[in-house]
């Protein structure tokens, strides 16, 4: 059992969301839902973060931004796609400037449904992401042990 999932830090990026999911992500942090009591912090620096929360679909300009933030995060890391747009493109799927869900650019571990995703659903998604984070951490430890023996 590692201490990693005890206090996961999030970095949030609004790809081309309508804002609905973004303010719900923020609403999770405020007094009614208050995930900060569990040690979850929303921070601006990708290098400090364990979980990458993306809202909205991918378009031409933000492709590189998403990739960039993802690359800056330290391993192990988990990606949570929040909302219909981040999962598949949602209602904007057929727009000329939308290329679909976030999984076009980076690997996604947890999908949260809804338009806009409800705070309860987002919290649930983050909790699921913790399981994935733990698993990734164990795997990387095992791998590290194997290589150090050789």
């Amino acid at each position: 059992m590692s201490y990693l999932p005890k206090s996961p830090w999030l970095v949030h990026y609004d790809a081309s969301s309508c804002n609905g999911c973004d303010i719900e992500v923020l609403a999770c942090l405020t007094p009614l839902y208050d995930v900060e009591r569990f040690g979850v912090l929303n921070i601006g620096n990708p290098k400090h973060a364990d979980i990458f929360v993306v809202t909205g679909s991918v378009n031409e300009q933000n492709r590189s931004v998403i990739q960039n933030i993802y690359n800056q995060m330290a391993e192990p890391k988990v990606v949570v796609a929040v909302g219909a747009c981040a999962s598949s493109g949602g209602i904007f799927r057929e727009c000329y400037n939308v290329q679909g869900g976030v999984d076009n650019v980076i690997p996604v571990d947890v999908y949260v449904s809804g338009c806009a995703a409800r705070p309860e659903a987002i919290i649930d998604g983050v909790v699921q992401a913790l399981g994935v984070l733990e698993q990734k951490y164990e795997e990387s430890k095992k791998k590290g042990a194997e290589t150090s023996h050789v």
Partner: protein
Amino acid sequence: MGKRTVVPFGPQHPVLPEPIHLDLVLEDEKVVEAIPSIGFVHRGLEKLVEKRDYQEMAYVSERICGICSFVHGHGYCETLEGLFQVEVPDRAKFLRIMWGELSRMHSHLLWLGLMADAFGFESLFMQAWRLREKILDIFEQTTGGRIIHSVCKVGGLWRDVPEDMLKKIVETLEGMEGELQELANVFLKDYTVQKRTQGLGKMSAEEAFECGAMGPMLRGSGVAMDMRGLGQSGYEHLKFDPVVEQGGDCYARTNVRIREVFQSIDLIKQAIGLMPEGSIENKVKGSPEGECLVRMEQPRGQVIYYAKANGTRHLERFRVRTPTFANIMPLLNMLPGCDLADVPILVLTIDPCISCTER
């Protein structure tokens, strides 16, 4: 003359919930020039009219922005009602006013929170968002959604609100007034908050008007322009005077928004008081034809909808000019001369909504 440096600001930045990018040219700590680049959220939803018919577009236009979602749905429906030449029943008009003003309250409270966050007053941010949740609860009780409501349709509304719930809403809002006053006191009387907002981003009435500022940006500079004063869509029955402040700085704009929250409570009470019994929809038949342009007041300022139809179920062109698009120019005018540390406050003072701007 100091050394010139270019500092990129955004698109992912702790103070910004949404992506906008500014290249700030600095001379020591002073901003000399700001060059914006936008387009991180551009989806091209105006073009969706070719794929979605006019009824479905009501849902698409709600998703122009998740903060003013009701107002966008309402604006779209009014534009289409203009094409059909259909007037909605009075009950529907007043319900729309009620939801519209609730949207304004939740948008302004959200902004107050973000503003507090920008000058580093974390607990004030939490307080503002805690109060905002009460408005979202009202939305959830009456429409079923917290953020996206989908309650407007062309010709009226999808659902009615029962009388006892209306009474409950008035009670909730009256109960909030005391807490809102406490919040307002911190924003307007606290010494540290005043230090950060007073005298910052000064704009005279003339400057603001000429460069196309809208909404609280314009009214904070002493121009009494509010599209609700046009007396359209039910506002003609209400007692309404635009909120105006003379200061022209960030403090005055904060004050305008705070006073508008209280004004909204008053307008909702008036609207509920005047609400007649009756139907909530006048059915529209056939397909829209012609051209219509509607100006309305959103929480962030004046919005313009334009629709052109040719008698098929699909519009030929749908266009939205959102308030933030108009407020970009005032922002660019305000930035030169300020300190780097004040940039987040100046960006927030226009109440930026990037997904509105780029659609």
